[in-house]
């Protein structure tokens, strides 16, 4: 019969897969119980008659373990599993092979064993190769539940684990064999002894040499140690366990040299080689190796020892790994079985429970009530509900139940009411409503949610508390900045105490020296009042102060047993009955500035994280308030400073005008020395003249007149009448010259005249030195002496009077100039004044300086009047002229000139004194700029001049070169009155 079946594809890694499969050496018909058990389990779980573990070889599929079938292998071409392994990580489920194109024509489907259902999970080893499957097969269609699929998957992994274990086991067996071979090969004489020196095994060669040796006998049955102690005791001493030892047969015919080596905790090896025809000595357990004649034995021994050690280590490692694996496997198996049964139990239990509960409300621990819709007399109440509502089976109070369950006709008619909450006997239930078609009734399930509700309530309370805290925080955050810091503290303390329910609440601040903390108020919760606070000094509680340095809250559950505050016990805690305490530090950046102190009169079990967090938030707010206070203070300070600044400013403004006044005074002061002299000189002259007049009149003039004849007086008056002031010598030089000339003339004309000097002086003072024709008569007069004497007195009087007049004029001029300069007016006046006179006054005042070596030329036309403040402008002229005089040491030519344009008077004051250096010209009008020595000038002169000129809406510039320095002042002809302050 030709079969049309779909050939499966090969996995991509088929070649490597086959290689891996062959490594496992699994393909045999040997029955392995562990695998069979898993197959059984898989079939059970899936409720299928057939279960298999298959391995897919190159062209065959091997059924390693099987239930429900008897064949050992199939052709790969008809294998289901060969399809399954194409997707190594997924289970392949064929619900109905007859409907599946891949398998519909498969002989295994069409014929025995008539496969319909197939579920196969690939067995994937560590390297990812799908070696075969764990599969379950049925001859009718079925569907697997998720749990069943999970179980198959887990079991398939278990199969792989077992495969792995099996492989390792095989490797171990191999290795063990190799080891024994190796030991036998390398150490022909070995014995394995237990710790009691009983022989566990021995090498082949040993057997040949000592055929009588048997396993189970003691070492001492056959041998004697060539030393006083046995090998096992040597083993305990690490240093000696590789020593060469010797033993011999009891009949002393065979001798062996050996080393001993630990195998495991309970056994040890003796590796021996026979010693033949050898002489050897043993002295005090020490063997003189040089006495050994056969060096090759030693080399042999060392070689044996090394290889034996290596083999042993391998052996031990393998042993351990196998036992570990076994253990793990066992555990995994147990877990699996347990999990499986638990799963099953739970599924069963659950299903049963649901069934029971639905079918048998009797058993439902929750209250269930069923009420007929059509006939409301039909009522069923389960025991739980009966207990709840206090009725018994026979006496069901429908009304009461309806009331309890809040059942009305609507509920019964609606069939599908939503669930509601009801309360019965202080228990809260969720009432679920179901329509029971069978009986046309409504079934009410009550689900006890009392605890859930209680929890909800608790949560709500917590939320409320949290909200309260938040609100409190918000409230204290909003405490008005108008309040003082301590008032704020009071409000905060109160709010804090009320939220966290502490009996006493206070806020403490550290002083700047950090040696005292103070609170002004303590809030008492119970009394809802504040009491006065206290201060704690460092000296009284150094430990407590130390604790303040911490940046975290200090939680004291019992104040009686806390070291940090023990110092406060007697005077604070005990009298106030404080049992617990929560101290929250106030931290400004990193520094503790104080603390919040919450005190409790009862021992607290715990401060909740919430409470601490709340206190921390409050502490932040307090610090903020504290900082705000600081800011407020500095702001106030700033305001005070501002005020002071403003006052200073006003003072400076006042001072400025004062300085301007002073500058004027300084100018005056500068003038005063000169002015004093200018006035003193005339005064001196007046005094001298006056004294003279006085004396002449009293002492001589009147007396002499009395003695004179009228003729003489007449002649003297005649002579005096000749006085011509214009001809009187003005300078001492002229006087001397005239005197000499007159003397010469008199000598010539009147050689006999006595006291010619006298006559010459009188004539000279009359200005008659060249008018001999006028005076000759008088000299020839017989009473000439009296006439001349009288005339001289008249001349002297006249001269004195003249001098007084002159002096008075001089002093008057100075006073007038002074008056012009200072104007004598306190008020600031703008008016018209004569420019020429203004300069003349200044020149008069400066005359004392000018007269010696300066020359000043006032070329201003006399008719020019200008408008302005005469005082201030005089100050300007004075300053400029005085500067020129000072700069040139009073030796310069000063020229004052006038020009005008349509709108401006232009006044130029120039001098030929030293030039002003070019670099300082731009600075000369700056305040406090001065080239004069300290004390000579304020440095304000030119600055004030500029201000004055600007006040007069004019301007001033300065040009200077080596020949001339000129100040050009321009003043408007018409002032804008409003802008002249």
């Amino acid at each position: 019969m030709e079969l049309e079946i779909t050939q499966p594809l090969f996995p991509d890694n088929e070649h490597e897969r086959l290689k891996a499969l062959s490594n496992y050496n699994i393909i045999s018909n040997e029955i392995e119980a562990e695998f069979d058990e898993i197959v059984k389990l898989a079939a059970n779980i899936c409720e299928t008659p057939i279960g298999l573990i298959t391995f897919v070889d190159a062209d065959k599929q091997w059924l390693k373990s099987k239930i429900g079938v008897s064949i050992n292998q199939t052709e790969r071409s008809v294998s289901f599993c060969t399809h399954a392994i194409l997707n190594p990580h997924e289970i392949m489920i064929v619900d109905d092979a007859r409907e599946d194109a891949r398998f519909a024509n498969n002989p295994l489907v069409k014929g025995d064993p008539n496969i319909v259902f197939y579920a196969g999970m690939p067995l994937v080893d560590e390297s990812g190769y799908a070696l075969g499957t764990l599969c379950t097969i049925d001859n009718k269609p079925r569907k697997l539940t998720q749990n069943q699929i999970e179980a198959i998957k887990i079991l398939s992994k278990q199969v792989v684990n077992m495969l792995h274990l099996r492989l390792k086991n095989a490797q171990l067996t191999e290795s063990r064999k190799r080891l024994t071979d190796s030991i036998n090969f390398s150490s022909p004489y070995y014995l394995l002894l237990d710790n009691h020196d009983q022989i566990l095994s021995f090498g082949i060669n040993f057997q040949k040499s000592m055929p009588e040796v048997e396993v189970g006998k003691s070492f001492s049955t056959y041998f004697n140690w060539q030393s006083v102690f046995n090998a096992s005791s040597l083993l305990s001493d690490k240093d000696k366990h590789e020593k060469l030892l010797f033993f011999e047969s009891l009949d002393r015919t065979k001798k062996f040299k050996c080393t001993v080596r630990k195998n495991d905790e309970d056994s040890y090896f003796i590796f021996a080689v026979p010693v033949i025809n050898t002489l050897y000595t043993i002295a005090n357990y020490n063997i003189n190796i040089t006495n050994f004649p056969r060096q090759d034995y030693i080399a042999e021994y060392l070689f044996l020892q090394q290889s034996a050690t290596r083999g042993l280590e391998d052996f031990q490692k393998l042993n351990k790994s196998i036992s570990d694996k076994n253990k793990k496997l066992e555990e995994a198996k147990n877990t699996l079985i347990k999990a499986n049964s638990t799963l099953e139990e739970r599924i069963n239990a659950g299903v049963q429970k649901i069934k029971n509960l639905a079918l048998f409300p009797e058993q439902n621990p929750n209250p269930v009530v069923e009420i007929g819709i059509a006939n409301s007399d039909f009522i069923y109440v389960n025991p739980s509900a009966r207990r709840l509502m206090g009725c018994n089976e026979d006496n069901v109070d429908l009304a009461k139940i309806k009331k309890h369950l809040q059942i009305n006709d609507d509920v019964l008619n609606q069939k599908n009411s939503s669930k509601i909450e009801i309360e019965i006997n202080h228990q809260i239930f969720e009432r679920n409503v179901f329509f029971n078609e069978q009986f046309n009734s409504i079934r009410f399930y009550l689900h006890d949610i009392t605890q859930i509700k209680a929890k909800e309530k608790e949560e709500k309370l917590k939320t409320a508390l949290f909200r309260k805290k938040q609100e409190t925080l918000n409230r204290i955050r909003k405490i008005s900045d108008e309040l003082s810091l301590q008032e704020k503290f009071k409000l905060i303390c109160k709010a804090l105490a009320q939220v966290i329910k502490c009996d006493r609440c206070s806020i403490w601040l550290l002083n700047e020296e950090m040696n005292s903390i103070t609170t002004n108020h303590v809030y008492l919760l119970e009394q809802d009042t504040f009491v006065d606070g206290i201060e704690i000094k460092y000296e009284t509680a150094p430990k407590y102060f130390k604790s303040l340095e911490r940046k975290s809250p200090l939680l004291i559950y019992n104040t009686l047993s806390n070291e940090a505050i023990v110092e406060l016990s007697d005077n604070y805690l005990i009298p106030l009955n404080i049992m617990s305490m929560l101290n929250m530090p106030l931290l400004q950046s990193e520094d503790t500035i104080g603390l919040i102190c919450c005190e409790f009169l009862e021992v607290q079990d715990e401060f909740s994280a919430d409470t601490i967090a709340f206190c921390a938030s409050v502490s932040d707010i307090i610090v903020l308030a504290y900082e705000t206070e600081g800011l407020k203070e500095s702001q106030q300070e700033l305001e005070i400073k501002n005020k002071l600044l403003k006052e200073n400013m006003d003072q400076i403004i006042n001072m400025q005008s004062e300085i301007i006044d002073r500058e004027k005074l300084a100018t005056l002061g500068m003038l005063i020395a000169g002015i004093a002299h200018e006035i003193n000189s005339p005064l001196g002259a007046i005094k001298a003249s006056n004294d003279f007049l006085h004396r002449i009149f009293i002492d001589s003039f009147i007396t002499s007149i009395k003695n004179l004849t009228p003729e003489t007086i007449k002649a003297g008056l005649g002579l005096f009448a000749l006085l011509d002031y214009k001809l009187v010598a003005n300078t001492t030089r002229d006087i001397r010259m005239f005197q000499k000339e007159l003397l010469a003339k008199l000598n010539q004309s009147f050689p006999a005249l006595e006291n010619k000097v006298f006559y010459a002086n009188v004539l000279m003072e009359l200005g008659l030195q060249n008018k001999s024709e006028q005076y000759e008569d008088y000299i020839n007069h017989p009473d000439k002496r009296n006439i001349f004497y009288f005339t001289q007195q008249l001349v002297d009087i006249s001269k004195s009077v003249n001098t007084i007049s002159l002096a008075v004029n001089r002093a008057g001029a100075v006073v007038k100039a002074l008056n012009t300069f200072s104007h004598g007016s306190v008020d600031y006046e703008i008016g018209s004044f004569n420019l020429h006179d203004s300069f003349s006054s200044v020149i008069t005042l400066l005359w004392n300086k000018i007269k010696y070596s300066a020359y000043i030329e006032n070329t201003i036309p006399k008719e020019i009047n200008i408008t302005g403040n005469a005082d201030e402008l005089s100050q300007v002229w004075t300053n400029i002229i005085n500067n020129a005089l000072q700069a040139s040491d009073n030796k310069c030519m000063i020229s004052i000139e006038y020009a005008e344009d349509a709108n401006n008077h232009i006044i130029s004051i120039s001098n030929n004194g030293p030039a002003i250096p070019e670099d300082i010209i731009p600075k000369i009008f700056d305040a406090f700029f001065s080239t004069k020595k300290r004390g000579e000038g304020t440095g304000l002169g030119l600055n004030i001049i500029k201000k004055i000129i600007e006040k007069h809406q004019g301007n001033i510039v300065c040009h200077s070169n080596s020949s001339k320095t000129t100040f050009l002042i321009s003043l408007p002809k018409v002032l804008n009155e409003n802008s002249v302050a």
Partner: protein
Amino acid sequence: MNKLAILAVDDEKIILDSIKIQLEKNFNHKFIFDYADNPEEALEVIDELTQEDISLLLVISDYMMPGMTGEEFAIKVKSKIKNANILILTGHMSEEKGLDLMKKNIVLKVMQKPWREDLLIDFINKLSENVEEQNNPNR
């Protein structure tokens, strides 16, 4: 014995006139009086007097004068006549400056303007007596 001379120097005519009035009135013809209204001329007068072999009793000088100060003038006088007696009459010189000039023996005395006539006359009288004693110690 020759008369001694007194020379007065002041640039202010009215001052010089005042001095002249006071001197001539008090001493009449006891001394030879010479007047100069500027220091240069005064130095010339001194030279003239020296030529005429007239001894100088006193030079009365202003301080602030055109061309040179009283101090400069005094030094120049001293360079001509080593032990010349010089009186400064001044309107504006500080007391310190005056004392300094006296200490340095540049001038014999400083008097403030306006001066008291009696003090001036007294001073000249005493000076005259001293000089007479020095010249005629035996008398």
